[in-house]
């Protein structure tokens, strides 16, 4: 009698533990780069990326002008 009661108690306890565990799993915050945003250092990345792209765009513009000049000359 006591052993069955114990078993029931144990299973209820385990059920509770597993329920809280799964609840924790679903509620756990998804890790994002909040630190990077809070410290403001993400802006450094944005500036670096922008610089690289502005450089590439400038290079394309230069190429474009160069080709336009050649086209004019070969006319």
């Amino acid at each position, binding site marked *: 009698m006591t052993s069955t009661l114990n078993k029931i108690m144990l299973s209820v306890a385990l059920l509770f533990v597993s329920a809280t565990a799964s609840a924790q799993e679903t509620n756990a915050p998804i890790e*994002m780069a909040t630190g990077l945003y809070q410290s403001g250092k*993400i802006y450094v990345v944005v500036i670096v990326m922008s610089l690289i792209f502005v450089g590439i765009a400038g290079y*394309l513009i230069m190429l474009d*002008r160069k080709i*336009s000049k050649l*086209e004019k000359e070969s006319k």
Partner: protein
Amino acid sequence: MVSENKVNISSNSSSPLGRLGGAWWKIIAVIFVLYTIVAGFLIPVPAQPILHETIRNLYFHVPMWFSMMTILFVSLWHSIKYLGKSSIDSDISAAQAANVGMLVGALGLATGSVWAKYTWGAWWVADTKLNGAAITMLIYLAYFVLRGSIDEEQKRARISAVYNIFAYVLLIVFLMILPRMSDSLHPGNGGNPGFNNYDLDKNMRMVFYPAVIGWILLTVWIFTLRVRIEKLKRKKLFND
């Protein structure tokens, strides 16, 4: 016709943007891509399990494929035009468009591979979408091998134009149809029509769409530069 117009516009230096090749869309391309670099990093994104901040890759990885499909369609268009009029200018455009398509395609594969490593856990997964993309690249590489193997100009243009039409049909099969018919890790497949399982929210759309437009325009810009260089080279060859 289209390519001729482009050259005419670009050599018209009397317009205010004349020295730039005379096209406002080049400025749009630069502004849009610059905007996506800034907004893509700073605008908040939905927190998703597994993806975390990598969801921002959507702004940079996916436009590569949109650009590839667009520029390869341009290539197909010029190939069909060549078969109609046998103008070697169309052949130049078709080949240069395919060339730029390979550039953005390679960038798409490389960026996708890095993204896969940090979300799926491997650089490459035997997946219909990934393998389809790789096969498409190989099909187009064969286009250049084919071109390189024929010396006579008109013959090369004609045969490669026919091959190019086959190549685009296969691209649609491998990138659009087959991945939708089987389960895939890659979003937008296995019967799913789009990016909805990314929870592409309003914020993300505001960055994603300009990113696609900006990168497509940038790809077209590089394509026009290549075409103009090839035409100059050909002209010089005849003058010398």
